[in-house]
């Protein structure tokens, strides 16, 4: 084993409780970080789902040509106030109807695609534009009627839902960042204190190494490796506990939210999300360890 790794492991073995306290704090930090990261992802997805629901549906006349539809779709897409323009054909409209009445097949058997009008569905960058846009679309010659879903349902309109979700998402993100920031700062301080204690107990050894020609990098290496071991152990443990938690609750969450993709539905996609979080945490953990150990070493040098 490399001499620096051996030295670092020796230090850990000699003071296991210091190591345990550093790893515990880091584990807590990265457990909370993983939880917050998944929650931020889910709330973002929830918000995106509702934001991209069609808020305005322009039902088209029966005699429209594909060129006319394409022209209007392009016009709407070019409008900055409009988002996510989607053409729904008569056949697609029938399918939507069939899905909605799947519990009563008789209803869908009696209808044909010709009954349903084709439509252009779109959402708005801001619901305050709704009145203008609807008035404008109504004037189009190929448009028969215009439906505005956001105005349906009184107080629990889509606008209300989106607005509430935005607030919740904001709280989750800001609250999460503050919590993770505070825990990160505590972890950083604990690392500095423990590495500082290590430097103090190694004072004699450092002096000897210095006298026999060890470079500052040589003297620093076991200290940095030790801090990295604490960080990686904390990241892996915190992430693993969080992973088990999500593994346990995901089926219930997916079932509860139904078609709303708050979490990736595929196991593989969910694993990729968690591996990305792990990668980011390992990076942050490394930075935390490097900064903490460098700071402790430079403080020890100043006090020598």
């Amino acid at each position, binding site marked *: 084993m*490399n*001499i620096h790794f051996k030295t670092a492991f*020796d230090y850990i073995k000699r003071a296991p409780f210091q190591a345990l306290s550093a790893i515990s704090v880091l584990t807590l930090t990265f457990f909370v970080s993983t939880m917050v990261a998944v929650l931020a992802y889910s709330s973002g997805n929830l918000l995106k789902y509702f934001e991209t629901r069609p808020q305005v549906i322009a039902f088209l006349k029966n005699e429209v040509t594909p060129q006319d539809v394409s022209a209007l779709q392009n016009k709407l897409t070019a409008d900055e106030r409009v988002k996510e323009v989607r053409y729904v054909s008569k056949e697609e409209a029938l399918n939507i109807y069939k899905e909605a009445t799947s519990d009563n097949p008789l209803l869908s058997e009696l209808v044909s695609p010709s009954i349903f009008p084709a439509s252009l569905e779109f959402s708005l960058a801001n619901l305050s534009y709704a009145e203008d846009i609807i008035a404008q679309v109504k004037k189009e010659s190929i448009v028969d009627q215009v439906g505005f879903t956001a105005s349906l349902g009184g107080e629990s309109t889509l606008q209300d839902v989106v607005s509430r979700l935005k607030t919740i998402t904001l709280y989750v993100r800001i609250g999460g960042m503050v919590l993770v920031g505070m825990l990160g700062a505590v972890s950083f301080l604990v690392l500095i204190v423990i590495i500082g204690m290590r430097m103090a107990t190694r004072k004699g050894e450092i002096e*000897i*190494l210095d006298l026999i*020609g*060890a470079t500052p990098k040589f003297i620093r290496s076991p200290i940095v490796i030790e801090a990295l071991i604490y960080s990686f152990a904390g990241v892996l443990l915190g992430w693993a506990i969080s992973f088990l938690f999500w593994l346990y609750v995901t089926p219930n969450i997916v079932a509860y939210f139904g078609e709303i993709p708050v979490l990736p539905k595929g196991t593989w996609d969910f694993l990729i999300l968690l591996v990305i979080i792990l990668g980011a945490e390992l990076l942050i953990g490394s930075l935390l360890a490097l900064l903490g150990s460098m700071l402790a070493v430079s403080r020890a040098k100043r006090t020598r």
Partner: protein
Amino acid sequence: MIQFKKVSKSFGTIKALEEVSFEVGKGEFVYITGPSGAGKTTLLKLILREYQPDSGEIVLEGVDITKLSDEQIPEYRQKIGVVFQDFKVLPERTVRENVEVSLAVIGVAQEAWSARVGQVLKLVGLAERADLFPNQLSGGEIQRVSLARALVVNPKIILADEPTGNLDWETADSMMELFEKINKEGKTIIMATHNKVIVDKFKKRVIKLKGGKNVGKEKVHELEKEPKKEENEKGEGKMKVKVEEV
């Protein structure tokens, strides 16, 4: 090999060395002698660049080491083997590991450690103690660990600061025999000591420091007698170069 040219060093108002000049040739074995506080350790620390002189030059193989930058010092120290009076071994490492550390410091590949460490431990007579910790060894054995650590890097010069200071006579004798053996193999040795018996028994060139700052550059092997009481009282920190030729 090493030249001191009018080297002075003070600590506040205390003049530890003043205009000290001498030269040590390659392969020489030289004693730095003098009573406690004479400046022997300061002189060795100047060679090791633990201290920077206030004035003067210290030239090792043509390089004025007083002009080395902080970044160059570790590389410079790697060429020097040091044996300390208080041993300075790493207490939580075995004999073998203490010696291996020196090889790690100079960047020798790990595969080569075993052979080199084995060889040097055999030389100092600690081959069978390789896996023991310093607290399981006698004082003489610990000093041999210190010597083995200094030797394993094949240094150009060995500095020994009172290496027999903490040892009994018998052990000190065997340590000195070891130093002689190493010197005969071509290593330059500069040894600080105030042990008259050692200096008389193992006759080498002596550089005397008196009252803290006194240099001789001629071949001598007798320690100057302790300064008289009146001389000390009148001396007021003045130091003169005292050279004796025998």
